[in-house]
């Protein structure tokens, strides 16, 4: 029988640029609840924190995301050990 700890899915969240400043944090480790298995689910979970989290991630201002350093979509699957980044549309070059 597997230890219970095995089911806890830990992910690293990173925020860049305007999001990092508005949210007041650059990165954090969070445990994914059992029902959260894709980017849209994670975004809903973070918006539930209210305040800047709700307003920045609602999609009224454009937000992009990457999973393990690849551009990702709302239905991109996420799981234990993933590095997930949220940021505004890029403006380099």
């Amino acid at each position: 029988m597997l230890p219970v700890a095995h089911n806890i899915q830990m992910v690293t969240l990173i925020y860049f640029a305007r999001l990092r400043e508005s949210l007041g944090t650059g990165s954090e480790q969070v445990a994914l609840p059992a029902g959260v298995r894709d980017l849209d689910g994670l975004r809903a979970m973070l918006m539930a924190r209210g305040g800047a989290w709700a307003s920045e991630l609602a999609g009224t201002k454009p937000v992009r995301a990457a999973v393990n350093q690849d551009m990702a979509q709302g239905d991109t699957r996420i799981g234990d050990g993933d590095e997930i980044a949220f940021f505004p549309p890029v403006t380099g070059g």
Partner: protein
Amino acid sequence: MAVRVQSEDFDAGREIAAMRAGNAQVGAVAAFVGVVREMNDGSAVADMELEHYPGMTEKAIAKIIDQAKSRWNIFDVMVVHRVGRLKPTDQIVLVVVSSAHRGDAFEACEFVMDYLKTRAPFWKKEQTPQGARWVESRASDDVAAGRWNVKA
């Protein structure tokens, strides 16, 4: 292929020379230098801070270069992108493409620049007389990238 993300300035001439060296089949080198402008969207820019996503940046640029190599007949691509504090007239980005013929070199160079603008994780924050502001992405950049018909 070479990708460098650095705070130091670069020497476009040296990079162009390096792309020619050692391959006598190179007939064309196309290069692009992006420069910080004094005015942007109607505001005077005193200086700017370029933030990036270490790790993903290099990976995203390498992917863009791979796509360019699969689409055009080119020998090599090199990209240098600066990060950190920059001021007007500073160089930001360099793209150099070598090829046998000029058509491939020009198109691949423009493709890499268009994709850098929409796919590589860099963000500019400008200092202006009205205060600091994050630069907003331009719809025209999405249009420019979109015309190459590449899947995201």
